[in-house]
Each structure stands twice: as structure tokens, then as C-alpha cells.
């Protein structure tokens, strides 16, 4: 969780981040931690971290299309499943692993592009329904294509044992792979959403008419965001095989897609750090509820979700902000809270377009 330091927790913290020595030392410290951590942690912790990495990447993909671009997607798990299947198929047929990785990214991206070209014409709930169809149809489809997918029995692929000579345990090697691949994806995505494209996404999310009037084609950017989300989903599928080493139609069941959406909102929509926290929520909460009482997991998970959102409607990523506000409030005694004019962006995702007051946001 050392990556938390990457986040602009509050405006004060981000000005702290702007100090030159922090700018230089921060990434370096992070790198050292990431290199050292797998060597120091016990196997169970490494496994958990690696799984968090897998789903953090999946949530990050969802964030690109939903958090940053505002298009509801309930199909993200399909792309994870697709990436996992491509990986499993490639590995069992002894393809070159680099080729397998490239295909695990490209195949979902191309499928995502095709789906998006059609779906992005629709808006709002309609796009949600079209994307819901992906996992729902994907599961029986995977069973029908059993020559490639192993049918309902799934595919195992054990290709990430630590190479001889590294002296590493398998879990350490796998965690390094997750850090390397996942870290790269996070870095690239962070640059993407903070750059020109991210601003365009934000404008499309804010108001499509405004976007059009600024010469930004909402359709084109929605397709782009969806395609990138699918590609990132494919990467998470590859990582899924790195860590879990098995995939079946159950991997892409509709319920998991909903859980990814939950993870994204719980972590914090449109937030890089939120994606990591969302991945952690996705992975840790079932383990945690199992530890409390395995026969009450559903009840506990539902309750936990509600409690977290009740306390932090902006997701876990808004915790530092909420704390700062709380502290400021208590310092000022009974003084008023932070002004509403403060930008609510957790991410500093650039200049979010001024959101026009929609009708439902009536109350002051």
C-alpha cells in the first residue's frame, strides 16, 4: 500500500509533493519498497498483494471508461476473462510468452473496440445494458467454444514458477511480475488521464454537448475510452493467469462484473489510487469476512460496503480529504466546513469541465 504516497491526498499534500526533493525521492522510495517488499513478506501476504494487483488493474480499466469518461460499463470482467483465456490457450500451446502477453492485450482491445463502435452510439442506461450482455453471453459462449476454452472445466496454465537461478520463491516471482506489468499499466494510465486525453474524457463525462461544441467528438472519445478499458482488462486477465493460473467460465460470471463496479466506487471513482484501493477491497473483504464467519460472508460484505460508503460516499480514496476536513473543522471549533467551491476532484485529473447543474442537483 506504499503506493498511497503517490496520491495527492489533499491540496496541502500535493503542494508538499511539488517540492523538488520529494518529486525526485518519492518514486525512488516507492521503487525500493516495491523491490524489497516481495522479499520480506511471508508467502500469504505476497499472494494477497498479487491478487490485489490483478484486480486493481481490472478496476483501473473500468475507471478509464466509467470513472473518467462517465460511461457505465458492467462488462469489465468479460475482458479480464478474455485476456485470461487467451493467455491460458497460448501457454498450453507453448507460444512465446511475449506473444501471449501481446495477444492477451490486443484481443480484448479489438473486441472492446468492436463492441464500443456499436455501443457508444447509445448513452446512459442503454450502454450499461449492452455491456451487461458481455459477461452474460460470454459465459455460455465460453462453454460452447470448449475446444479453445476447455469448456466448463476450464484451463490450467502453470507458467509462472520462479525461473531457476533467480533464487526466488514462486510467490515472489509472481508478485514481481504483477508489480512490473501492473505498475507499468498504472503509470501509463496515470499519464493518459492527466494529459490531453484525460481532459477530453472529463469534458465528455461532464457534458457531451459542451464537448461537441469544443470540437471533441464524444463518440470517438467514448470508443477510445472503452477500447483502452478493454485492453487494460486484458492485461488484468494475463495477470490473473500469472497469479491464479486457472480460468473457467466462472471467472467472467456477471456477479464478478458487478463486484468490480462496486470495487471501483468503493475505491473512489476517477482516481488512480482509488483503483488500487478498490482492488484491495475486492480481494481483502472476502478473506476478511471469511475470517470473521464463513457462513455469514454475504451479510458481512453487504454491511461493510454500506458502512464504508455511508462514511465515505466518495470512496476510500476520499479518506485523506475527509480527515483533513474533519481536522480543519475541529481546529476551527464550530466554524464552517470547507467551501463547496473547492474542486471535488480527488485525482487532479486536469481541468474537469465545469459540470452544468443538472436538475437532480437542486439542493444547495
Amino acid at each position, binding site marked *: 500500500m506504499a503506493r498511497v504516497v503517490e496520491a495527492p491526498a489533499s491540496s496541502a499534500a500535493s503542494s508538499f509533493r511539488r517540492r523538488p526533493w520529494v518529486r525526485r525521492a518519492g518514486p525512488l522510495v516507492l521503487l525500493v519498497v516495491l523491490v524489497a517488499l516481495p522479499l520480506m513478506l511471508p508467502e500469504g501476504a505476497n499472494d494477497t498483494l498479487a491478487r490485489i494487483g490483478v484486480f486493481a488493474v481490472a478496476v483501473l480499466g473500468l475507471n478509464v471508461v466509467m470513472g473518467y469518461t462517465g460511461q457505465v460499463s458492467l462488462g469489465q470482467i468479460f475482458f479480464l476473462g478474455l485476456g485470461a483465456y487467451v493467455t491460458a490457450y497460448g501457454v498450453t500451446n507453448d507460444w512465446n510468452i511475449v506473444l501471449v502477453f501481446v495477444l492477451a492485450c490486443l484481443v480484448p482491445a479489438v473486441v472492446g473496440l468492436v463492441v464500443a463502435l456499436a455501443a457508444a452510439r447509445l448513452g446512459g442506461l442503454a450502454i450499461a445494458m449492452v455491456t451487461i450482455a458481455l459477461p452474460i453471453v460470454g459465459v455460455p459462449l465460453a462453454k460452447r467454444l470448449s475446444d479453445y476454452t476447455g469448456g466448463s472445466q476450464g484451463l490450467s496454465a502453470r507458467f509462472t514458477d520462479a525461473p531457476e537461478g533467480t533464487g526466488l520463491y514462486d510467490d515472489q516471482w509472481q508478485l514481481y511480475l504483477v508489480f512490473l506489468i501492473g505498475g507499468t499499466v498504472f503509470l501509463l494510465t496515470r499519464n493518459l488521464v492527466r494529459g490531453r486525453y484525460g481532459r477530453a474524457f472529463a469534458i465528455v463525462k461532464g457534458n457531451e454537448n459542451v464537448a461537441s461544441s469544443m470540437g471533441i467528438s464524444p463518440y470517438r472519445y467514448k470508443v477510445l475510452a472503452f477500447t483502452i478499458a478493454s485492453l487494460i482488462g486484458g492485461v488484468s486477465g494475463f495477470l490473473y493467469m500469472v497469479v491464479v493460473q486457472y480460468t473457467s467460465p466462472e471467472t467472467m460470471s456477471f456477479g464478478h462484473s458487478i463486484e468490480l463496479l462496486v470495487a471501483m466506487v468503493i475505491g473512489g471513482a476517477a482516481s488512480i489510487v482509488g483503483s488500487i484501493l478498490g482492488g484491495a477491497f475486492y480481494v481483502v473483504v472476502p478473506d476478511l469476512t471469511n475470517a470473521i464467519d464463513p457462513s455469514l460472508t454475504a451479510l458481512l460484505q453487504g454491511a461493510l460496503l454500506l458502512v464504508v460508503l455511508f462514511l465515505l460516499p466518495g470512496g476510500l480514496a476520499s479518506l485523506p480529504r475527509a480527515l483533513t476536513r474533519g481536522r480543519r473543522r475541529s481546529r476551527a471549533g464550530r466554524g*464552517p*466546513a*470547507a*467551501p*463547496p*467551491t473547492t474542486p471535488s476532484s480527488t485525482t487532479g485529473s486536469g481541468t474537469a469541465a465545469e459540470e452544468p*447543474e443538472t*436538475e437532480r442537483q*437542486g439542493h*444547495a
Partner: protein
Amino acid sequence: MTLLELEGVTASYGPVQVLDGVSLRVPDNGAVGILGANGAGKTTTLRAISGTVRAGGRIVFDGKDIRGLRPDRVAALGIAHVPEGRGTLGDLTVRENLRVGAYLRKDAKGVAQDIDYCLDLFPNLQNRIRSNASALSGGEQQMLAVARAIMSKPRLLLLDEASLGLAPSTAKNVYDAIRRLRIESGIAMVVVEQNANLAFTLVDSATVLETGRNVLTGTSAELRGMDEIRRAYLGG
């Protein structure tokens, strides 16, 4: 007889103090304008009256302290707020909007009459009676917003920037209709308006706000003559 009286009203959004002691007096059947530059606290004053922001000080309507009442309770007392941005109910038809406006009334016959009156006042709405409010033009939406407010048979109308975003001729039409309404029904009004000339066609007196405080109060005739005030606060 004073219908509405504000005294030393304060309000803030978080740490930002928006109203810092605003006072206002609206006589029965009177119409008072609130003028001032952007951010002076005009809209917030209306919101303080209708109960949509928490306010300090004294707000008395018809002899009753209404400060802190919920907006629907304030409405029930006879104050109708036409908010900035019109606040029409987009997914409802024009007729449904008008019926919602009459929610508190029990006299079906009177409601039907008032719908006819509204359509007479704003003939543009007549043709669009079955359209969704969201499909109306800006001017038509503004007319609908006012019409919906009158449907509750209010004793006081709070009118916020009724000319905003409208073509000058449309704005004039809207104000003409409201003036006719005032003459025919005698509803008292508090009018927030950027366009001072337009406001002066409707109100008897006005107060000028600056950073949440009254800086100048007078009759329309008095204020209309003060060039420097006009330049400073009313943007010419």
C-alpha cells in the same frame, strides 16, 4: 402592512460568508427588487427566504418567523420560489408541471380555472401543453416556471433572474406577463434581476447588495436616476 421582513439575515456556504446582515421589507401587494453584481448575495437572499439555505437573523412572513422552516413548509405558507435556472420538471409535461404547482390546493375547479389563466397569461404554453418541459425553449421554460409558481396561489413570489439567457424580446415578453399578473392578482414579489432596466419596469422599490450587505435602498424612481450606482452595480 408588511408582508415580509428580513432583518440582519446572514448565511454562509462553508466558511464563505455570503449574507452578512441583509434587510428587506416587502409590503402587501408590493414588489421589491434586489440588485447587485454577481456574488453579491441576491440569490442566496431568496434561498434564505424559501428555506433552502440555513440562515441567521430574522425572517418574518405575515407576522410569523419562518427562518429555519423546510422549503415545502414555506411554500405551504404562500411563498412561491421561481429559482434561478427555472427549475421546471423536465420529464413532466407542461400540464403536469402546472398540476404539481397546485399540489397543495384542494379546489379542483379553481385549479382548472388557474390553468386556463396561466395559459392566457403565457399563450406560448397553450400549444405545448402536452410536451415535456425539457423540450421547451428557454423562454417557454421560464414562462412555465412562473406559471407553475402561480398555480399554488401564493401571496409572495420570489423571482430569480427570470431574464437569464433569454433573448431581449423574450425577456420583455416574460416581464410584461409578470407585470400583468401583478396588476391583476396583486401578488407581492421579490425580484432578483441582473438587468436593472427590466427590473424597474416591475418593482416599486429596490435594494442594492454588495458582498452580502445592503448598500443602498430606495424607490425605483430614486435609484433609476443614480447613474454612478447603475454603473457600479448594475453594469449599465
